[in-house]
């Protein structure tokens, strides 16, 4: 952990002196407020992810499920985005669009190593990744610098160490707000959801993914990966903090957002990929969203 922080500092101080190279990447890094002042941040959780931050981009490391899940998440966001912004376009034409988020401002709250942020940026979005952990932000920036398209500004991507609350204070709004696998790690999800809602511009979209507080959620997302297969570090998830989709809906509706979709996401162990699963599986209503699920809401 100490070693890692030192590393980030060395790396980033090294780059900071060269701001002429790509100022946008680095400008907002030093003016950090103490994240403690924000209510929804859980410091132990931030610490937990910081410790593993150097493994973010190792597809076989502790974040393996996030790697394999990322393409399905992007697929989901793409599809929901179509229903919102490209209603008249045929699916076939929309699927040929390499940059559906072109011209849209996106924030990825709790971006971690930047897995989703990079993908959304490649799809044309002006993406800001924020994370409360400076180590994560260091890793995300370092990884971004490995790709000339981000360095040369072909794609627009920036990272800052910050929180949803802080961005709200700064009165920033975005066309698309994403926050994947974050809500189950925050201290107060009501506050957190309110901040995400404030960040969403009118007509904008909020997409989250998390784990359902069900027996299946506990089994598939905690017991098996953390205790049986040991592919995810133990203690990554706390079952008590899992949130049900209807709980999210209730809060969002109070702050002017309408939930437009809830979709399950299921792991396929043989191919190590994930499959989007409709909410209802045959006659079983809500069966598809018993463990991991994605939820989308539109700001009215």
């Amino acid at each position, binding site marked *: 952990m100490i070693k890692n922080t030192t590393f980030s500092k060395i790396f980033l101080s090294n780059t900071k002196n*060269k701001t002429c190279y790509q100022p946008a990447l680095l400008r907002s890094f030093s003016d950090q407020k103490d994240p403690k002042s924000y209510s929804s941040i859980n410091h132990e959780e931030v610490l937990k992810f910081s410790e593993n931050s*150097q493994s973010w981009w190792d597809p076989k490391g502790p974040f393996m499920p996030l790697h394999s899940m990322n393409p399905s998440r992007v697929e989901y966001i793409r599809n929901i985005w179509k229903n919102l912004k490209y209603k008249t376009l045929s699916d076939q034409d929309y699927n040929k669009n390499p*940059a559906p988020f072109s011209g849209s401002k996106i924030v990825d709250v709790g971006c971690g190593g930047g897995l989703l942020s990079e993908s959304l940026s*490649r799809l044309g979005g002006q993406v800001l990744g924020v994370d409360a952990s400076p180590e994560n932000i260091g890793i995300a920036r370092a990884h971004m610098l*490995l790709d000339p398209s981000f360095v040369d500004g072909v794609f627009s991507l920036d990272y800052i160490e910050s929180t949803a609350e802080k961005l709200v204070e700064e009165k920033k709004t975005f066309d698309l707000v994403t926050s994947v696998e974050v809500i189950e790690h925050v201290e107060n999800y009501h506050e957190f959801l309110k901040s995400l809602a404030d960040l969403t511009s009118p007509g904008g979209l909020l997409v989250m993914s998390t784990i359902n507080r069900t027996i299946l959620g506990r089994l598939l997302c905690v017991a098996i990966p953390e205790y049986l297969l040991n592919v995810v570090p133990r203690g990554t998830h706390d079952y008590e903090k899992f949130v049900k989709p209807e709980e999210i809906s209730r809060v969002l509706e109070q702050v002017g957002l309408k939930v437009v979709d809830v979709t399950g996401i299921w792991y396929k162990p043989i191919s190590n990929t994930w499959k989007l699963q409709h909410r209802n599986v045959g006659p079983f209503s809500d069966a598809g969203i018993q463990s991991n699920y994605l939820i989308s809401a539109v700001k009215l």
Partner: protein
Amino acid sequence: MISRFQISLFRARNTFSRQLASYSSTTNIKNYDITVVGGGIAGSSLVCALGSSALFRNTKIALVDSGSLTKISNWDPPTDSFSNRTVQITSANQSFLSDIGVWDNVYKERVQPYSKVVLTDMLGGEILHFNTNPGAEFGKFPAYLVENVNLHQGCLKTISEINKKEKRIDIVEGIKVDSIKQGSQEADNFSDYPIINLSDGTAIKTRLLIGSDGMNSIVKKFANIDTYGHDYNQFGSVANLCFDRVNETAYQRFLPTGPIVILPLPNGFANLVWSMDTDVYNKTKNLSDENFVKLVNAALRLTSFSDFEYLLSLILPDGSLKNNIDILEESEWRIRNSTESSGFNESKGYSNPELSPPKIIQITKGSRQGFPLKLRNSDKYYSDRIALVGDAAHTMHPLAGQGLNAGLTDVITLVEILGNAVRLGIDIGSTENVLAEYNNKRYLSNTAFQGGVDKLWHIFRSKNPIITTARGFGMKTLNQFPIIKEFMVKNAMF
């Protein structure tokens, strides 16, 4: 516990400042997303597929070829002859070529669609015939015979058309690849992007490098991907032939010395691909065209291998014949007097005259060529940010004429995976999401196909009576099961 990423980060830290310092000075390095090395049919059709798809409209593409593509572009089709190098295209691959606009740029009058294949076995004495699609309208045949140069030019025309609309593909031709460096080999390269140093002093840095540069692939060499395989100790003898009548059927005959294949071209022309043991090849290569034609006609009809061996024994090292014997007369006499029962010997007539191959009357001057037959496969079809397609990845016995089809299927698969990656914002050079998936989809299938063709080669070479009987039985049985035959045609086993 040190991950690759940590190593690259470490490298990044060390080389970052240097990278910054040298960034402006290395202006002769061009950045591309996809660089295709080798502009043959596989490489140029790959570029067409990328260039014709809207998904790749933001993808920077370069095609590098050491030869002169202009020569192919300027090919003026002769009116009285065909090239001796042809390729059988399966209907699936023909659809692909249509979709990417290449098929429209191919001279159709020089393409022979066909649905009839007649297979015979010199020793097993059986006929197997395929006719899956009688009366199919143009565009829906199970196979098409196209001259390589016709198809290649079609690809290059399509590339120019794409570039005319909107410059999408940079072509670097007549320039060789001097070296390819990656990662730590290149101090200024702080990621794992391959840097291709070219013979004109410029360099290309690319997110993904695709090697379609043939059997002796430079890309494969620099990627340190091992090759394994074996030589068949055989030669393929190709030639362009002329029949005594118009023909739209393909003929394949298994001789113990290797299969002889005749593929139809328009206007009574056809191409020969005759695989033969090196000693047989050495005997036949000096034959005059006239005598070679007689030998081919004999090989298609003789029902006894000893008769065929006798004919070969008449050939002197300089290509002349012992006692000036006429091969034609000799073979016809032997066919007439053949005591061995057979469904298709000339004395009885082919049991069904429709299945009898027409007489070859002439060889196009200068169209006879020979090349050694090899089977090659690579350990894998990728390395970090590098993929291999076509002959760079694998070559197989031309018995089934499938070398290029396998290459086109590589291209189709890779383009589909790349398209999906672009659609989902995935780095198209990523190993786990792109390259490993491509390898998984193609490696096993190519290896199995190569293995199948290789096995077939061994089975049909055998003079062992048990195997020849089984072979005959197998062919007879297959004739009873049109569905299996149809499957074989669809997958272009023959």
